Structure formats: C-alpha cells, structure tokens
C-alpha cells in the first residue's frame, strides 16, 4: 500500500548479486501488487488457522489416551480412537444429540409456519398498524432471555392458575418443564422475529401479477398463498429454516434451565457435554471427542447451506 509511491525507482538489472530478501524487496517495490498479494495470503491464512485450529486441537486431545493427558502437545501423544466410542458408552451422548435435533426440528417447523403467515401479511399488505407491529416484533428479539425466564418457569411448572372451576378445581398451566414444549415455545418466540423479517423481504419481492393470476384462476385467498406464493418463496423459507435450526442447536440459556438435565427429560447437548465436565473430572479426551461429535451435524449444515446462511444473515442485518 505505502510502497506504491516507490514505483519504478529500481530496475530489474539491479537485481543481480542480491540476497533473496533484497531481491524480493526490490521486486515488491517494482510491483506493489505482488506485496499486496503476499500480504493478503498471509492475513487470509492466519484467519483460517485461528478459526480452524481449535478443531484440530480437539482432535489431538480426543485421540490422546487417558493416561497421557497431562502432556498434550500439538500432536497426539499416543493414538486412541476408542474415545469416540467411549463418548457414547459413558454418557448416552447420542440421545442428548437426538433430543437437540428433535427440539430443533419442532421449533423450525413451528417458526416456519407462523413466520410464513406473518411474513405474507407484512410483505403483501399495507394495513393500519403494520409498522408499529413490525417494530414490536423486532423489539422482542432485543430482550435478554433472562427477562422471560421467571414467569415462563412458573408457567411451565404448572404454577399459574388460569381460573377456578365452580367445583373448586383449579385449571392450571400445563406441566411442560422437562419436556420439549418448555424449550420449543420460548425458542419459537425468540427466533420467530428473524424468520418473519427474512420472509417479509421474500414475499414483498413476488410480483403482484402472479397472485392476481392465481386468484383469477379460481384459487381462494389461502389457496393462492399455499399453492402459488409459498412455493415461490421456498428459498426464503429454506434460509429461515436453516438459521432457526442452527440458532436452536446453539442455544444454551433455556436448554440449561428448562429441564433438570436428565437425558430422558429432553436434556440437550448442553447437558450432555456438561455431564462429562461434572462427573468425569479428568476425562478431557471424552469432552473433546464429544465436542467434535456434537459439531458434526452443524458442520454438515454449514457446508451444504452456506449460501443460505450468508443471504439470510445479511438480509436480517440490512433490514434495519
């Protein structure tokens, strides 16, 4: 960048009998683009190394046999792939993962259904209260989960009485604690706003003519929505779905607090991983192996759906 001013001060003939460094330096001065390129690759590679190194190091720790764990270097001290099997035998980690995936899928389904309806309303209609409602929905995602925790905990542990029947029986809220509902409902509310905004953008880009044509052909309002508009917005629905699933699989707060942590009570990978930390104080190789196993579903999703993730995040970000 700064070398640009030195352009053309040296010529190629002077390069003879110089050390490599000098030759490289004068070459760079003659051709600043080259320096720039080298710098670019150095920076790019250092970013890649810092983002990927922890995964490499987890593999090293996971492969190191239990007895050698006091001295882990940059290469595994021994080779013990058995840790990846032990992960499932000491703790039913696969069940924790299945719980996570099921809760993720249930939330994604609920969010997509509700967000499609809301996104259609916001994207296709001008109605009184549209802008304030959108802002209120957006505001929900600003609140910290802690601000919802206490009442939701009461609600999900059947501690809220709706009303008392004449006979004296109290109708209380359902007991959702330790079940999937206690996580799916808060997640849906928390992650719905982003999906609504992604889908609003998508629906608003569909030309009016298409919908009119569908209506003229004798489709009802809902028929036009489900048969014509929704299929057209499939890319948006996929984006919103991928982002919602990743967000749920990522989540910690409610996953930690809305179950007692037992695997039969819908505890997710949060509890699965923490159980290695709690029970087996020195099983660092198992913690590392379990972390790698837990990343696999999300890594696959990132590789497959990276375009969707990028477009969804940026659409959500630029919506402001």
């Amino acid at each position, binding site marked *: *960048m700064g070398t*640009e001013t030195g352009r053309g001060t040296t010529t190629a003939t002077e390069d003879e009998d110089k050390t490599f460094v000098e030759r490289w330096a004068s070459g760079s001065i003659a051709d600043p683009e080259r320096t720039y390129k080298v710098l670019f690759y150095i920076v*790019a590679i250092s*970013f*890649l190394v810092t*983002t990927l190194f922890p*995964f490499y*190091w987890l593999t090293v720790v996971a492969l190191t046999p239990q007895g050698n*764990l*006091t001295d*882990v270097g940059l290469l595994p001290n021994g080779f013990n792939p058995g840790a990846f099997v032990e992960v499932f035998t000491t703790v039913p980690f696969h069940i924790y993962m299945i719980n996570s995936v099921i809760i993720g899928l249930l939330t994604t389904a609920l969010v997509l259904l*509700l*967000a499609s*309806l*809301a996104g259609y309303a*916001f994207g296709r*209609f001008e109605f009184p209260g*549209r802008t304030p*409602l959108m802002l209120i*929905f957006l505001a929900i995602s600003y*609140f*910290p*989960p*802690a*601000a919802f*925790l*206490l009442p*939701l*905990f009461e*609600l999900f542990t059947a501690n809220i009485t709706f009303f008392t029947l004449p006979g004296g029986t109290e109708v209380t809220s359902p007991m959702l604690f330790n079940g999937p509902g206690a996580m799916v*409902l*808060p997640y*849906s*509310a928390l992650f*719905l706003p982003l999906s609504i905004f992604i889908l609003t953008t998508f629906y608003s880009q569909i030309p009016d003519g298409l919908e009119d044509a569908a209506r003229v052909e004798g489709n*009802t309002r*809902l028929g036009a929505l489900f048969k014509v508009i929704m299929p057209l917005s499939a890319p948006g629905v996929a984006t919103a779905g991928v982002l919602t699933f*990743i967000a749920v*699989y990522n*989540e*910690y707060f409610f996953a930690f607090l809305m179950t007692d942590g037992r695997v039969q009570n819908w505890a997710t990978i*949060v509890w699965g*991983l*923490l159980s290695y930390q709690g029970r087996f104080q020195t099983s*660092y190789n198992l*913690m590392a192996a*379990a*972390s790698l196993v*837990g990343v696999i579903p*999300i*890594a696959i999703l*990132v*590789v497959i759906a*990276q375009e969707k*993730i*990028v477009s969804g995040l*940026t659409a959500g*970000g*630029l919506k*402001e």
Partner: protein
Amino acid sequence: MATETGRDRSLSLSSPGRWIEGLSDTQFAYLLLTPCLILFGVIAFWPLVRTFQMSLQADLLYGAERLGPFVGFENYVELLTGERNAALPRPFFDPSQIFTSALTVTIIFTVVSVFFETVLGFGQALILNQEFRGRRWARVAIILPWAVPIVIQGMIFFLLFQPTIGFLVEPLQQLGVFSSTPQANSVESLVIVIVADVWKTSAFMALIILAGLQSIDRSLYDVADVAGASKFERFRTITLPLVLPSVLVAMLFRTIGAMRVFGLIETVSSCSTVPSLSCLVVQAFSSSRYASAATVAFVTAAIIGLVVSVYIVKFADVEGGGGF
C-alpha cells in the same frame, strides 16, 4: 379472537373459506398474524409484564408463597444504590470489586469483545470480498465457529486453558500473564471468555460487513483510480464511509448478544467467577430471590434498550438523517 368469532357469526357459517374471502385486506392480514400474536402474547409479552410485576414485590425466602408484599420501586432503588449487593450471590455494582460485579463485568466483556470482533470481522470481510481460489471453502471455515453451539465453544476454551492439558497455559504462566488456575480467577477467566467470544462471533460481523462491502458501487473505485488515489485513500474515502452503516448494524446485534452472555461463562468458568447480568438473574433465581432476580432481569433489559437507542441515534447520524 373474540371479534373474529363475532364477525364469523354475522357472515355465513357455511365454509371458513368463503368467510376468509369476504374479509378486507386489513382483516385478512390480522387473521394471518393471529397465531404469531398469540405466541408472542403468552411467551413474550405476558412474561415481560409479569417480570416487571414481580420486580415490584419483596423477596420472600421462606414459606409457600414465592413473593412478598408490594414494595414499589424499592428493589430498583436498593439494587442501583448498592444496598442489595450483600443479599445477592454477587454484587450488582461495587466500585471496589469491578471484576466480580455483574454490571461492570458485563460492560467490560461487551466493550472489549465487540471491539475485537469488529476489527477482526472487518478484516475477514475484506478478505472474503476478494476473488481468490478456494474462496467458498474459506467462507465455510470462517462461518463454522459462528455455527458451533455455545456449549461446545465453551468446552473448547475450557480445554484450551485447562492447566493440565491446555498447552497455552504453561507459556502464559511463565510469562507471568496467567496464574496456575486461570479458570478460578475472575480477571483471567474474563479474558478467556472474551477470547472465546471473539473466536466465535467475528464471523457474524464479517458476514454483515461483507454484505455492506458488496453493495458498494464498483464505479466509485474506477473514479478513484482515475484520480490517482492510493489503495489506502480509496479505503478511507470510499470503502469506510459507505460500509459504516453495515458495521454499526453488526455492532448493534453483537452488543445485544454480548450483554446477554451466560452459557459461555458457565462452561468455561462459572457464574460465580465471572458474574454477568444474566448469571446474576439465574443465581438470584436459584437462591429463591425471585423479586431480586426479576429486578436484575428488567434492569438488564433496560440497559440493552438504552444501548439500542444510542446505536439508532448514531445510525441516523451516519445515514445523514435518512433514518431507515
């Protein structure tokens, strides 16, 4: 819902399809929004109102009832003046204990991590904005940490800084930077938590800034080239001002996220070593101080609201008063 059933009755009850056809656009839009409004009402608005209501009552540590009598804003006054500090698992704000007070820990964590995330995210965005071979895979590598579950992110940095196995701890100890048990030391744990957060979320910044970079009109750079501007001048006069709104949006999102930090701390260290505001809510809640927990939760929400409004004002400034 009640108004809809009322309208329903006045129209033909024969088929819901025909009833929907008869609605005006506004009525139809609200019908489509009804499921969302119900969910938000029960899972978001009601809990917020209820949390506020709880924060106006007294803590009741014994007995069948969870909350004591109505005390107005006493909880808030005591929390903000520091009188409540002794009763809470960790102080809310105590100038003599900056690294174990929830407010200061959260602010330090937020400011430092958002600063580094912005700088690194900007760098990553500039890299991804170039054409080069393997760009697709570079992008996967940069996004991957963002998608890693918080508990796994925490586990990675718990292990990296674990004295017996983490190879980073020994050299850092020899340099005198870290003590022998960094995960039990508030300052050192805070540093580890910040490093972990920067590792995971710089990518998020990068993606939003990248979108801003890609929306810049290329012909501006051609004009700059003709005018003989250097690469640095091009960056300073074109790239930076045009990408600033995206940077601010990314910073806003990250600031909101950082102020809620909880799970990362629980996994890497513990909530009593690095007490964030969300940690304090959970700790007060588990020690049956429901009213105090509700008060801290509401104060946290208010602080986030304040930060959001500062950003929105700043954003309107940058956009030249253009608003959204």
